[in-house]
């Protein structure tokens, strides 16, 4: 079976790298987009199976990226998990309202947790 493709939209390369390696070891292909604009582009061109999305992003912020992805016919079915360090109730609510299936705070989430939720989502 072909590996599932995950698009990780994250500007902090030092954070993206360990996450990428850990996900790859668990059998996923991981692509990294360094800013919001690139994220939208790659969501369209790469047909990922799942998107991990940061909120504080250069050029276009994560909420805008989410809006754009959910508004486009081609990408609106891709499940999006927000993976950010913003933990305010307001942000969580906004993210879920905009169509993210879950919201994880980087500092409070272990590798196992994120792998579990990704697996669960992709299996459904």
């Amino acid at each position: 079976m072909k590996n599932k493709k995950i698009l990780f939209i994250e500007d902090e390369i030092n954070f993206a790298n360990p996450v990428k390696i850990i996900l790859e070891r668990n059998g996923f292909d991981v692509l990294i987009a360094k800013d919001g604009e690139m994220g939208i582009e790659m969501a369209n061109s790469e047909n990922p199976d799942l998107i991990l999305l940061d909120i504080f992003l250069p050029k276009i912020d994560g909420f805008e990226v989410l809006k754009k992805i959910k508004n486009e016919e081609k990408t609106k079915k891709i499940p999006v998990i927000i993976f950010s360090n913003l933990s305010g109730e307001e942000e969580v609510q906004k993210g879920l309202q905009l169509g993210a299936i879950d919201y994880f705070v980087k500092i409070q989430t272990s590798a196992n947790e994120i792998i579990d939720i990704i697996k669960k989502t992709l299996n459904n």
Partner: protein
Amino acid sequence: MISLLILIILGLSLILNLSLGFFVLFKNTKNVINATFFLFVIGIVGWGTSILILLLYGANIIVTRFTFSFAAIMLASFLLFSIAFPNSKKNKLFYPIIFLIATFFILPLIGNFIVKSVAVTGNFITIDFGSLYWLYIIFAPFCIISSLIILIKKYVKSKSIQRLQLKYLFLGGLLFLIPAVMTNLLLPTFFNIWQYNGLGPSFSFFMIAAIAYAIIRYHLMDIWIIIRKGTIFALLFGVIAFIFVFLSSLIERYVSESVKYIIPAFIVTIGFIPLKNLIELATDKIFFRKRYKFTKVISDIEIVIRQSGLDLYSLLEGLHHAIKDSLRVKKAAILILIPTGNFISRHVIDGTITELNLKSDSQIALHLKSCDKNILDKEDLKSGIHQESAMTPEAKNQIIKEIEQLDFTIAVPIKSNGKLIGIYLVGEKLSQDPFTQEDIYLLEHITSEMAFAIENARMYEELKKLDQTKSEFISVASHQLRTPLSIIKWDLELFSDKDTPQDQKNELLKTVSKSVVSMGDQLNKLMIALEIEEKKNIFLDKKSAYLKKLILECLDKYKEALKEKNISYETIFSETLPSTICDLKKIKMSLDTLIQNAITYTPNEGKIKIEGKTKKIDNKDCFVISISDNGIGINDKDQENIFKKFFRSKEARTISPNGFGLDLFIAKKYIEAHGGNLWFNPNADKRGTTFYFSIPL
């Protein structure tokens, strides 16, 4: 006894008249109205003084002749005054009349043409007239009648304020004539009472005062009140004297000599207060209709302030209504200083809200800023009665033009601690009356309340903003500190994975250590910012340093970042650059900020230029460094905030979402602690910014 009192009153009124004459003259010696009025006063005073001397020292031919000379001055200069008033214009009759004055002044003095001899008995003066006396008989009515004709003609043609000025003139004349007719005509003719004769000229004071008020109109002592009191007492005096004399002569036949005065005196005493109230009411109804109670307005204002709390809008509206109801003005507007330095209005009284804008470099703003005594009154400036020493004629004309353009009459400064924070513009009164001294007091009082309210509301708004900044900061800070922490956390996750080879583990330890350093840096900046806030003065560990070397070292640190974005850079240093004494760490940190910002906000393939030279700033030798980039530049609306702590522009956040917004705040404070300055200019081609910093050598 009575005649002594009369003499004292006469003397006193002459002194008062003379001082009023001088007062008006010195208000503006160049104005023809002021000059002719002064001549008129001299005539009256000279005339009155001659009469006083005759009454005191008996018949004297020279003094009698002077009586006629001064009377001539009085009559003819009133004619001059009538011509000039209220427009300060002369006509072709002006100089012939001056010639007439001179002739009729000299004529009585040079022989027996007018006065042959004189005799005084008691308060009577009997004169034997000379051969040319008929000239005076023609001259006096000629002056009076032509003055009256001129003034009535002007009154019919006049409008609003001029009409009001003329009204005062007639009112003054009436105040002179009514009591004078009573003492010098009614009482002697019908009741054969002559002893009040000498009192007649004293009433001229009311006339002089009324005319002086009509000329100067504003901001003088409150002649308005004096006139009101004067009117009431003149009428009261006339009525009481009439009642007293009328009653006593009526009951003369039926009662004994001693009782004949007691009964009228009794009646007058009982009737005094009701009579006074009646006359006051009638005078106010006829002449002083638009009066308001000052104390009532003040207490209204206090209620408004108490009720509106910290809400600026409701407070300003409340104050507006207090003014509208008491001064009865057509409109008014409060212009408030905004950060650009201009003044804009937030509210207009008459319902139509039009945006008013007054530039900070307008003459009105400049004048109100610089001057202490500084209510600007369009009518006052236009009349030219007052000489404004602090104002050039060009500035004055400009101010009049500006007030007219705004379509208002008065501009009152709103000052807080001597600083102009707003301007209160007031339009014409509905009655078109001029503003009185009392109105001015009221406006001054209200504007001081406004200043207080505006400052309070500003402080409140600032506190609110500060609170908002603080919560924003907490959200940003928590995110900011979580970023390196989460990198460490995930690096460690990977580190503990059994599949991670040793060389990768070594790499991971390196990034962990980098993240720890970065977090330490961020925390350090937070501490510095907090310390600067609390302590205000910054400790400097001063050592000698070559700034050029510091800059080159700093650039070296960013070599990789420059290469990565393919940014070219250029450094230009003037040849002789001396060393400076500074706190190395702090200057390094500031330089770091500026160079790092230039790199961050300049696009790939961009260009950075760093220049260093010595320059005199405010007579001090300084080392000035400029760092110019062709990056995103700084938005107009963000320029005033760029050095505020925790501020990051939207554009900056788009390019680099992480950051506290403390670097420029700290750099500026550090450089200022050295006695230098940090500032910026947008580049001429609108692309990028140039930051400058100066350090005294």
